[in-house]
C-alpha cells in the first residue's frame, strides 16, 4: 500500500496554538473520515501536522521540509497570513498545493501563485461586507475602527475603513493595539467620541476581553468584527451580561444551522475532548476540499498516485459541494469563486444568523 500524506501548517504551540490546533484537529477529522475511501483505492492516508509557531521563518522552514517529502501531496494551512505568504512561496516550486482555511489577507492570492488557494473570503470582500452591514443594518454614521496590529486584523480593518470612508461614514477613531488585557484607555476614548458602532479587526480572545470591558463601562455600542470572531468561546469571554450586539462576518454557516455541522461538532468534541470552533470547521472544510481533490486526481490518474502538479491543477479546477461553508470552487488565483458571507449576531450569548450576502473575489 502506498502512503499518501497531507500536511497541516499552523501554530500548535504558543499563544495562537488554540486556533492552530483547531485547524489541525479539523483536518484530522476530515482525514479520519476519508481514510477508508483512500484505503479502498489502495492508499494509506495520513495527516502530518507541522507547528509554525505563528512565525514566518519557522513556517517557511516547515514548508521547505514538507516540499522535500514526496509522500506529501497537499498542505492545509496556515492560520496567519504572515506565514502563508512565504510558506506558499516556498511550496510553489514543487507544485505543492496549499489550501488555506484562515488566511484572508489580499496578498495571499494576489501574488497569483498556482498552488495557493483559500476557502475563506478575502479581506477586501469581508471588509466591505462588514462596512455595508454597519451602514445599512446598524445605520451607523460614526464608527470607531480598531485592529490588533497583525497582518490579518490590520488588513481587514483597513478594508473596512476604506469602504466606510467611501460611503461618507465618519471614522471617529482608528488605531491598532497589541494589548490583550487592559483596554481602559481605548474604552475611555470610545466613551469620549461616542461612535455609533465599533469595528474591531482581530481575534476573539482579544476582542472578547475588550467587549467585556466596554460593556463593563456601560457602553452598549454594537461591535462588529470579521471571521476572527467566529468562535464559540466569544460569548463566554464577554460574559452573559455583555454578550449582546456583537456581529461578525464569516463564510461558515452557523454550526447549528446545518445538520452536517452538528455531526461535525459532535465528533470533534468526542475525538478531541474540545469544543469545535469556527477555525475547526474551516480546517475541516479545507482538508475536505483537499481530500476530494486528491481523490479526483487519483481517479483521473487511473487510481495511481498522482503527481503534485496534478493535484495542484485538479484542486484549482474542481468544484466541491456539501461543505460546512457551502460550495467551494476557486478562481484563477485561488480565491474562492463565490461564497456566502454570513453576518452573525451574538444575542444573549448565542450566535444567530443576522443576514447573509454573496461575495465574489475581484478576479474571476
Amino acid at each position: 500500500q502506498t502512503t499518501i500524506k497531507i500536511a497541516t501548517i499552523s501554530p500548535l504551540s504558543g499563544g495562537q496554538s488554540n486556533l492552530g490546533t483547531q485547524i489541525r484537529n479539523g483536518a484530522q477529522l476530515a482525514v479520519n473520515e476519508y481514510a477508508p475511501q483512500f484505503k479502498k483505492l489502495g492508499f494509506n492516508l495520513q495527516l502530518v501536522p507541522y507547528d509554525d509557531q505563528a512565525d514566518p521563518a519557522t513556517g517557511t522552514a516547515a514548508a521547505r521540509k514538507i516540499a522535500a517529502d514526496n509522500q506529501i501531496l497537499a498542505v492545509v494551512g496556515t492560520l496567519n497570513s504572515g506565514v502563508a505568504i512565504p510558506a506558499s512561496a516556498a511550496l510553489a516550486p514543487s507544485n505543492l498545493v496549499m489550501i488555506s482555511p484562515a488566511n484572508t489577507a489580499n496578498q495571499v492570492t494576489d501574488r497569483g501563485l498556482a498552488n495557493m488557494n483559500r476557502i475563506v473570503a478575502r479581506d477586501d470582500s469581508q471588509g466591505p461586507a462588514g462596512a455595508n452591514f454597519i451602514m445599512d443594518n446598524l445605520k451607523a454614521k460614526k464608527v470607531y475602527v480598531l485592529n490588533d496590529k497583525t497582518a490579518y486584523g490590520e488588513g481587514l480593518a483597513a478594508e473596512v475603513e476604506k469602504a466606510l470612508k467611501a460611503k461618507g461614514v465618519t471614522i471617529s477613531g482608528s488605531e491598532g493595539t497589541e494589548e490583550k488585557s487592559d483596554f481602559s484607555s481605548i474604552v475611555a476614548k470610545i466613551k469620549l467620541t461616542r461612535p455609533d458602532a465599533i469595528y474591531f479587526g482581530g481575534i476573539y480572545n482579544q476582542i472578547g476581553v475588550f467587549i467585556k470591558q466596554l460593556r463593563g463601562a456601560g457602553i452598549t455600542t454594537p461591535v462588529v468584527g470579521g471571521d476572527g470572531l467566529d468562535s464559540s468561546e466569544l460569548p463566554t469571554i464577554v460574559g452573559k451580561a455583555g454578550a449582546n450586539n456583537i456581529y461578525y462576518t464569516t463564510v461558515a454557516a452557523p454550526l447549528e444551522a446545518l445538520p452536517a455541522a452538528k455531526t461535525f461538532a459532535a465528533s470533534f468534541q468526542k475525538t478531541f475532548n474540545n469544543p469545535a470552533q469556527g477555525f475547526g470547521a474551516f480546517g475541516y472544510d479545507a482538508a475536505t476540499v483537499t481530500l476530494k481533490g486528491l481523490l479526483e486526481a487519483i481517479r483521473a490518474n487511473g487510481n495511481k498516485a498522482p503527481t503534485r502538479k496534478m493535484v495542484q491543477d485538479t484542486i484549482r479546477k474542481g468544484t466541491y459541494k456539501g461543505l460546512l461553508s457551502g460550495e467551494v470552487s476557486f478562481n484563477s488565483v485561488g480565491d474562492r469563486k463565490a461564497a456566502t458571507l454570513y453576518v452573525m449576531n451574538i444575542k444573549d450569548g448565542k450566535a444567530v444568523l443576522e443576514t447573509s450576502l454573496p461575495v465574489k473575489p475581484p478576479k474571476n
Partner: protein
Amino acid sequence: MTVANPAKPAVRPPTVQPDRTFWLMLFFIVSSVLLLVSHSPEMLRNLGPLGDVLRNKVIEALVVSLFLANVLFAYLWKAANWAKLIVGLGSLLFVLPLAGQTDTSLLDLSIQIMIFAALALGLNIVVGLAGLLDLGYVAFFAVGAYTWGIFASPRFGEVLRYYGENPGSTGAGTLAIGLVLTAVTAGSMVYIKGLQARVAPTRLSDRSFLLAGIGLLAGIILVARSIVVLSSGSAEALANGISPGFFWLFLALSIMAAAVVGLLIGLPVLKLKGDYLAIITLGLGEVIRVLANNLDLYTAGSQGITPVGSASVPWFNSLAGTLGFRPDQYNLLFLYMLVLVMIAVVLLVNVRLDQSRIGRAWIAIRDDEIAAQAMGVPLMQTKLIAFATGASFAGVMGMIFAAKQTFISPESFNLLQSILVLSMVVLGGMGSFSGVILGAAVVTLLNLRILPGLGEASANVSWIPQEVNPANYNRFIFGSILVAMMLLRPEGLLPNKRRTRELHHGEDQEDESEDGNAGGLKAGGDVYSAGLATIKEDDRPGGSR
C-alpha cells in the same frame, strides 16, 4: 569524619588525544552516504524496509544532525589537517549542496543555522566578551532586513510615489541645505575629535560633539529626503524595487545601518550597568519592532514587505544549472554559499578581535569596569565598539534573511527571537566561538528539524493521542532540553577555556562567589549587588558627624 575518598592527584594528567583521522574520515563517509541516501527518494524506494526506517522523520532529523556533527568533529578531533580540510569543506561545499538538490529544505535549514550562528557570534561579543547583557539584539537583525527589504521590493516604489505626491517644501534647495549641513557638521565633528586628541576633552567639547552629531543626522535626513523626492519621478520604473545589482552595495549598507543604529542605541544606554542595560535593550528591541509595525509607509506595517528581491548572479546560476540544480534552487544555493562566506568572515573578525587589544579590553571591562578604566581602557568607546560590531553582524544577516524569505514582517523580530539567540550563546558556551556556533546549530536543528520530526513521526502512531502529540508541545520539549542542558553543562557545550576556569574554580567551596565574581556579568572584586533596598529616609551615604 574521615573523608573516605583519597586525595585526588594534584595535577590532572594531560589527556593526550589519540589521532582520529581514520574515524573522522569513516564518520564523514558514513554520515554523508546516510544523508544522501535518506534524502534521495529513488534510493529510499530501492532500500525496502531500511528505506522506511530512514524515512522516519526522527531518524531523518538524526541523520542530518549526525552529518552536521562531521564539521564539529573535524574541528574538535585530533586528526590530520588534510582530513579535517576534506571533511570540513567536503561536507559544506559538496555533500550538503548535493543533498540540498533533492531536498531543498536542507539548504534552507543550513542557511537558517548559519544566520543564527552569525547572530550568536555577534551577540557573543556583546554578552560573552564584553559582558553586556543585550536582550534586544534582534532589533539589529531587523534593521538589516528592512534596509534591504524596503529598497528591493515594491515598497520602494510606494515610498517614492508617496513623496512624489507629498513633496512638502522639499526640492533642490533642501538638498543643498542638507548637503551643506552634513558637510559642516561632519567637518566640525572631525575637528573636535582632533582637538580632543591634543587638548583634554572638556564637557563643552563633548557637548559640541554631540550637537554636531545631531546636526549631521539632520543633514543626512534632509539629503535623503530630498533625494527621494527628487527621484520620485522614477517611482514607476522602480515599482519592483531597485535592481538586484545593488545587492552587494547593500551588503555593506546593511552592515553600516545596523552599526549606526547600534551606536545610536548604545550611546545613551551603555552607561547603565548589568540588568538595567538588559531591560532597556529589551525595551528598545521592542521599540524597533513596534516602529516597524507602525511606519506603514516604509515597512508596510504588519502586512509585511513582499516580494523582497535577491541578488541575481548569472554566472553562478549557470554554474548551478550545469551542476543539476533546478532554477528555483539557484537563489537558495547562492544564499547558502554567500552565508558560508559571510560566516567565515564573521568568525574571522571575531577571532581576530578577540585576540587583540580590543578583545582584552572587552574582557577587562567584563571582569572589573573600574580597574579596567584605571588601566586606561575607555569604557564607553570599548562598549560601543562591542555593541556596533555585534550589531553589524546582525545587520548583514538580516539582509540575507530578507533575501531568503522574500517576505519580512515585524513578527519575525520579536523578543522571543532575541531570547532564542541568547540561549544559543549560553548553551554553546559564552565567549567560545565554536561553542556559540554549535549552540546555534543545536537550537536551530532542534526547532526546525528534530522537534517537527518528532511531531511528524508520532502523528500517526495510534497509541499517541493527538492531544499529547509532541508537535503540540514544542515549547515544553524545547524548554526541557534547555533546562536539562544548562543543568548538565552549565559552562556550555564547548566552553571557553577562560570560563571553565572560572566555573570550576572550587568544587570544594561552598560557593563560587567566594571570589567575589560568581556572576558572569558581575564586576570582580567586592560584590556589589542591588540587594533589597531599605526605605529608611535617612540612609543616604554619609554619617552623622
